[in-house]
């Protein structure tokens, strides 16, 4: 045993590797995931007091394997079945050096990520399963992060595992023909985890896991596994460049500050530099993709010393490309703002008009928030007020509603 308190990150890094080793040996992903979770919990209670074992990974695999065997043995006793040959293998047999070579680990982590983001699952289930199986977080930690009861999260995870089983998915990499689509789904899940964390206000609960940190950690892991995938790098850069602004995005009272009003001296320049380097390098060799373009837009914002110095023509060009790669109403909103900044608000307002008929915006506040902003730019404060007011009423987040109502009030005041 080595002394010293191991960091939680260290053993959570091992979670997907340990799970990979156990599931390859025993085959049942559902039970394997449970017992690895139990092993991680055992480590969390024992290691800080007793010291970390010399080979933490072997320790975790051994504990998880014993529990797997116990579990299956009791199941089988209940079912009055003969124990199968695998159970007789001593747990140490497959943790010998060599059995967990680096190549296997790498594939296991990727296989796990893609399995957890299986298309048969809903996004909330993909997120929960990914954080537990790949991220090594406990059900309680995930539940706290999403402000949900632990029982709800536990149910979500066990249902997700049952769905994967029913879909006939196995612990193996999908065939190359399916891989780009599956990878796309996995990146989307990582993006959702990041976004959930980014919007979270600093709560009083100190034990709440920082989801942005977790998403960045998992995306870094994905990038290590797929260094030649431009979109993985693009997503990581986007996260770094967005996370860099987090210290400045709210006032001390929790009110939201838009990009233009943020104190840029509070941006994390280390993250900005890493994100800018990463996206600049990636754009030089990778085929273009939506995450890279969003990262490039974030980089242009982050590189401006003041809001007035923002290179809007470059942002407009990037949005034009983004709309070609990933057309969608949310992209149109950003595109319209960029067009307004370069060519005047009339251009942006014209771009918003077709969205009025889009059913995806029927009850969404963002279209009205952007239109209010552009009308305000155009000097039409009466209409801007009405749009901000409608946006405020449609908003389902308290800080966003407060922000929009403040804008509506400003427009009403300046009009008088």
């Amino acid at each position, binding site marked *: 045993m080595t002394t010293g308190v191991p960091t939680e990150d260290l053993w959570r890094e091992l979670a997907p590797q340990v799970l990979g080793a156990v599931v390859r040996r025993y085959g049942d992903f559902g039970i394997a995931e449970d017992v690895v979770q139990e092993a991680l919990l055992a480590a969390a209670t024992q290691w800080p007091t007793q010291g970390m074992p010399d080979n933490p990974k072997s320790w975790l695999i051994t504990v998880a394997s014993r529990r797997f065997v116990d579990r299956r043995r009791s199941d089988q006793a209940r079912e009055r079945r003969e124990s199968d040959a695998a159970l007789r293998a001593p747990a140490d047999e497959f943790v010998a050096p060599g059995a967990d070579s680096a190549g296997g680990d790498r594939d296991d982590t990727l296989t796990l990520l893609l399995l957890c983001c299986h298309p048969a699952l809903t996004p*909330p289930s993909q997120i929960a399963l990914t954080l537990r199986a790949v991220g090594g977080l406990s059900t309680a930690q995930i539940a706290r992060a999403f402000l949900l009861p632990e029982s*709800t999260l536990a149910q979500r995870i066990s249902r997700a595992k049952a769905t994967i089983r029913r879909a006939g998915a196995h612990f193996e990499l999908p065939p190359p023909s399916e891989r780009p689509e599956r990878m796309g789904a996995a990146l989307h899940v990582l993006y959702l985890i990041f976004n959930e964390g980014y919007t979270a206000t600093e709560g009083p609960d100190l034990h709440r896991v920082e989801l942005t940190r977790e998403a960045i950690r998992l995306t870094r892991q994905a990038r290590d596994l797929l260094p030649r995938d431009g979109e993985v790098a693009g997503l990581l850069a986007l996260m770094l460049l967005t996370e860099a602004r987090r210290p400045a995005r709210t006032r001390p009272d929790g009110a939201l500050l838009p990009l233009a009003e943020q104190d840029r001296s509070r941006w994390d320049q280390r993250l900005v530099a890493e994100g800018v380097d990463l996206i600049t390098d990636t754009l030089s060799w990778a085929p273009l993709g939506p995450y890279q373009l969003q990262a490039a837009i974030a980089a242009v914002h982050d590189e401006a010393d003041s809001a007035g110095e923002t290179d809007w023509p470059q942002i407009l060009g990037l949005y034009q490309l983004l709309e070609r790669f990933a057309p969608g109403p949310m992209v149109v909103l950003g595109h319209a703002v960029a067009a307004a900044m370069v060519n005047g608000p009339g251009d942006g307002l014209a771009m918003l008009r077709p969205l009025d008929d889009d059913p995806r915006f029927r009850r969404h506040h963002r279209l009205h928030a952007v239109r209010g902003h552009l009308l305000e730019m155009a000097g039409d404060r009466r209409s801007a007020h009405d749009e901000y007011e409608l946006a405020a009423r449609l908003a389902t987040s*308290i800080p966003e509603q407060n922000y929009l109502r403040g804008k509506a009030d400003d427009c009403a005041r300046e009009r008088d």
Partner: protein
Amino acid sequence: MKYLILIYSNPETWGHPIFLRTKEGRALSDGERAELTGQLEELIAELHSTGELVDAAALADPINSRTVRMRDAAVVVTDGPYVEIKEQLAGLFIVDCATAERAEEIAGRFPEARFSAVEVRPIMAVSGEEM
């Protein structure tokens, strides 16, 4: 996103499941009653197993309601509900689901949806994105 699902009903006598206590519910055949009850149980089991159910509560007869007001620095408690309406709030569910459409689909599967009405209201998030 979390939604509050409000079950409204106008029962002749109070009790749960409440749709069986309404005029329409009492007029159902045994087979229809069993089918609707089964449908409700199935829905609750489904919400539990999908990990969408956050909380649920069946409410007591409004005869037990007390309305509390602070007037002239004194607390005044009166018997009965705050809002006098024919349809009473009978129960509530909090669900956490992927889309608004899914929340509406869930609401439509409560038996009360066919006799009275079920209301879906988004629950405000405490965090938000910058504009």
